[in-house]
């Protein structure tokens, strides 16, 4: 089992970051790897057990199930059901916590999975960099752009 943890600090209150992250059907609006997103069977994206079908920028499709979601703790977790790449038993957890010193957000993203022998390094890089760190950068840029607009208004 490979475990990956990435964490960062976003220069915005947790409520603003959570508003972006909590929509399990909204990753296509901010994550650079995701082109389209839809929830299957017409369920709400905050329905535990709902399944999202993501079309990635490279054209591949993945299905992921929402396992937990807490507005109080500002956490959610999900698992991969189907993917064209060798990520097996993939479970990921997202957690936000307030940095009261400066009204910022601590954001932690963890994932665990197994893969085929010989592909550990590539899958570790893909999850840690292309999914987690790229997600951090996209949300940081998005919130910076939003606050910039408010600053000019």
């Amino acid at each position, binding site marked *: 089992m490979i475990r990956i*943890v*990435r*964490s*960062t*600090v976003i*220069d915005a209150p947790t409520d603003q970051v959570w508003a972006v992250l909590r929509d399990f059907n909204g990753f296509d609006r901010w994550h650079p790897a995701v082109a389209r997103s839809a929830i299957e069977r017409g369920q709400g994206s905050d329905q535990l057990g709902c399944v999202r079908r993501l079309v990635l920028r490279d054209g591949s499709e993945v299905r992921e199930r929402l396992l937990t979601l807490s507005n109080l703790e500002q956490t959610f977790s999900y698992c991969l059901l189907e993917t064209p790449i060798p990520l097996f038993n993939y479970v990921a957890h997202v957690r936000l*916590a*307030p*940095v*009261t*010193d*400066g009204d*910022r957000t*601590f954001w*932690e993203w963890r994932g665990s999975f197994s893969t085929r022998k010989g592909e550990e390094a590539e899958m570790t890089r893909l999850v840690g960099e292309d999914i987690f*760190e790229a997600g*951090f950068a996209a949300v940081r840029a998005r919130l910076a752009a939003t606050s910039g607009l408010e600053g000019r208004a």
Partner: protein
Amino acid sequence: MARVYVSSVINGRSDRVWARVRDFNGLPSWHPGIAESRIENSEPADKIGCVRDFRLRNGDRIREKLLGLSDFDLFCTYAILESPMGVENYVATLRLTPITDGDRTFAEWTAEFDCAPEREAELVASIGNGVFQGGFDALKRQFGGESR
């Protein structure tokens, strides 16, 4: 039950920050509000259940018991046994979490306690801003300014 939550970012690796704060008898070495400390009955400072008897710079004396300490999860939990603060059932936890982006440390300090209702706001402010944030400010100075 009153609750205090204060968190900050320290510009140092979590193992280095932990090395500074894990010593239950070491408050005077990093917290500016603490003048001196000793562990009662000559027990080791990482023996769960040991009691620290320390003195603040303002002269107040506090006795606290170590309830939990983890070098793996980087947290320390303790309870107040005796203090002039007028709190009961006071339990606090100091917890560190690595920030992989920049090798920094996310530090959280929480407390829960009972007190007279009219004193709650003042106690929450003095513990949160004074003791907890005061400690974090000292760590931020000791580990260098945060690069933002």
